[in-house]
């Protein structure tokens, strides 16, 4: 049986950071990276730009073969983990073969969650998570005249924008009352929605697809209120679910994701998990949350790698902070932190209708920043995140901070953690 000291499953952000962290401390220990994807590592986040044609599919790779060869990492592409046998420290692969490991990292990320709507399995639809998904969708949008996007999260919105720009008539159907729920508030969502409708898209929020059937051009969707929509291109972007089927029947504890400690260790001592498949502590609550975003995947991946290599420089995970950036029709939106207003806390907003600039900041009762959102108002998200993580008292500068968050953020940075 093949043997390896470190086995890393997945080849995306969390996995790649873990590999780097392991090699920083242990340049020699045998390291094997497996991924079920046939391609070199790439980021799911870049895929909307492959769909639009802006990024060439062969220009998005995050690492090349040489990188792995130089670090002495064995890369196995197109190789899926089927089952993890922790009782004998073995990973069973799709082809039935096994790899024995000393330590394993599960960084298998997430896949599109397909809602259980009657008829969905009878029609052709697209999803967007892998490079192959993106190249298929890129070919399809060129021929699409009427497209429907199910789900108005960031994945759906990105794809919808591409479809609009490619000339299709696009309808976005979203169950929730607003789009980009969870990241942006109603005002910000309104600005985003307006940009879409100005460009000819139709947005149906608070709408649920209850039935699908195939039609002459593709699919016929029936909504809860009885209206029907026809689509020659259907994209399902209703959320993600972690990839952890290989844990079926295993001792590794999992809930909505794989449960991990603040060093990314699972309930089994030599098994770690990081990224979109992991469920780790949140920054605002000790409860374990899913925080399926790229920056957190890299952070968790690094911590897991350091823990696996027993790097004494390891620092514990401070807890996940939601973060996002979103570019739409030449405008941008940034969200850092929680949208929840803490008890006794304060929300301050500022909106300039003419320029479309919107800022919202949320403070705790003792004047710590807990969340900040901007549309067309640039600030350094990384600096804001530190203000939150370090719980910096903003009482002396609050007024100025709201007027010029970028400037004041930089001032505090340069005096506090430079």
């Amino acid at each position, binding site marked *: 049986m093949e043997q390896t000291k470190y086995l890393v499953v997945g080849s995306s*952000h969390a996995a*790649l*950071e873990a590999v780097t962290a392991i090699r920083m401390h242990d340049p020699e220990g045998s390291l094997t990276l497996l991924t079920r994807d046939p391609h070199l590592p790439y*980021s*799911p*986040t*870049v895929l909307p*730009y492959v769909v639009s044609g*802006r*990024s060439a599919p062969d*220009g*998005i*790779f*995050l690492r090349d073969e040489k990188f792995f060869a130089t670090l002495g990492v064995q890369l196995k592409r197109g190789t899926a983990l089927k089952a993890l046998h922790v009782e004998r420290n073995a990973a069973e692969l799709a082809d039935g073969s096994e790899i024995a490991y000393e330590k394993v990292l599960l960084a298998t990320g997430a896949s599109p969650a397909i809602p259980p709507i009657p008829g969905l399995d009878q029609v052709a639809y697209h999803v967007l998570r892998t490079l192959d998904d993106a190249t298929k969708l890129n070919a399809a949008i060129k021929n699409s005249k009427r497209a429907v996007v199910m789900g108005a999260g960031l994945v759906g919105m990105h794809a919808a924008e591409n479809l609009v720009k490619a000339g299709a008539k696009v309808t976005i159907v979203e169950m929730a009352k607003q789009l980009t729920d969870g990241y942006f508030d109603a005002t910000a969502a309104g600005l985003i929605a307006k940009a879409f409708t100005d460009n000819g898209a139709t947005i149906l929020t608070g709408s649920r697809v209850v039935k699908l059937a195939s039609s002459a051009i593709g699919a016929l969707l029936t909504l809860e209120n009885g209206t029907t929509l026809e689509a020659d291109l259907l994209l399902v972007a209703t959320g993600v679910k972690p990839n952890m089927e290989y844990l079926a029947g295993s001792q590794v504890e999992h809930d909505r994701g794989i449960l991990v400690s603040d060093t990314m260790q699972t309930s089994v001592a030599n098994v770690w998990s990081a990224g979109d498949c992991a469920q780790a502590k949140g920054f605002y609550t000790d409860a374990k949350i899913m925080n399926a975003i*790229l*920056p957190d995947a*890299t952070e968790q991946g*690094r911590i897991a790698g350091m823990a696996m290599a027993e790097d004494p420089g390891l620092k514990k995970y401070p807890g996940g902070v939601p*973060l*996002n*950036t979103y*570019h739409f029709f*030449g405008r*941008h939106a*940034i969200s*850092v932190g929680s949208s929840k207003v803490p008890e006794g806390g304060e929300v301050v907003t500022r909106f300039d209708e003419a320029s479309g600039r919107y800022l919202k900041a949320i403070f705790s009762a003792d004047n710590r920043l807990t969340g900040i959102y901007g549309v067309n108002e*640039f600030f*350094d*998200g*990384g*600096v804001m*995140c*530190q203000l939150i993580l370090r719980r910096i008292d903003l009482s002396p500068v609050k007024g100025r901070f709201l007027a010029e968050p*970028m*400037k004041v*953020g*930089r*001032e505090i*940075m*340069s*005096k506090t*953690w*430079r």
Partner: protein
Amino acid sequence: MGTFGGAYNTIAFDANKCDGCGDCMTACATAKVGVGDTARSRIQIVGSADDGFELALCRQCADPKCVTVCPAAALTKNSASGVIDWNGDKCVDCLLCTVGCAYAGIALDAGTGHVAKCDTCDGAPACVPACPHDALTYITTSRIYNEVGDWEDLFAPGLAGCQGCNTELLMRHTLRRTGPETVLATPPGCVPGMGSVGFNGTTGTKVPVFHPLLTNTAAMLAGVKRQYKRVGREVLALAIAGDGGASDVGFQSLSGAAERNEQILFMVVDNEGYMNTGMQRSSCTPYGAWTSTTPVGQGTGSGGMPSQGKTQDAKNLPLIMVNHRCEYVATASTAYMEDLYDKLDKAIAASKRGFAYLHVYSPCTTGWRFPTDQNMEVARKAVETNFVMLWEYNPADGLHFTRPVDDPLPVTEYLKAMGRFRHLSEDQISHIQGKVVENLAFVKQMAHVAKA
């Protein structure tokens, strides 16, 4: 690139010198986007006159967060320059890098809609010369590390210097730079004492080395150089001598060789005493210092008198050498490697024309009594207090300071860093501080005269 991976140049900021004028930002924006709009500068001065000014600028991190969060492989650490390169063709404007960086080192340029960051203008940053107060400097010391790493160390490994010895560091650097076409003369002192001239018929040096007397180093080396010239072989004739061997008994031959303008490079490793033979005082030992022949205590002085260290001031040998009008004379310190290498290069070139003299201050952990890991700190404090001044001289340009210290620390900052001055009385300290001021005025005067 050096054996241990690369070192890189960097833009350094001295907050104490910045008055917030913003000239660097104007220069950056002009260089990068063609307009002087400071909001579009990649270097951002933040803060206020009351609170002090600080900097938001890409640090070109070794372990860059922006690179790890970029989904488009648009950011990469350039292993040759150390700069984080941004590739506009790959960037998809997602702004995730601005969330990854905790230092505001990469930000949105509203003028283009893309992110922008410092690229050090390909090694000639526009902001640095634009600062009217010298608050910004472009530190290029990494060149030494990267180049020197590939040069051959011409001493055997495992020389028996004391732990933390500055002299060993200095001689290894010097020979790396002068290279294999060197003939080395090294009179009695720490340099041969630690084994460079060898044991039992084997040598500790990978170039021809000889061990003249304390008294005749410069004379012997001059003869050796002439013989090489006669047979038509180009070599660098190098002496590495201690301060005792140069300023005391070796002085007459040194002065003679300088007067005859012999084509040699004479380096003095000034550890301010005869450290190799048991830490006796030399004419370079400073006032007040303890040595084994200038002891401290009741009844340790001559005739059983109480004694408080050396009672005479040090001889300023490099200034005496200036008065020989040598091809090149300079003082240097291992705490200022860039300056030292610059002077080494000039001294090597000058030694092809005539006499070159380099005087390097070399703190001695054993004889000066400080912890073995404090060498650089002691060397730096000597310069920061003006106890030691870094300058150079050549007949055409005269004398000038290479690292002027505008705002010197009180000399006590230097004195308290080591044990040999521990016993000093207030009077002795004020004598030393007075000498520092006097020496500075004296060298300044010479610099002034030279200019006129």
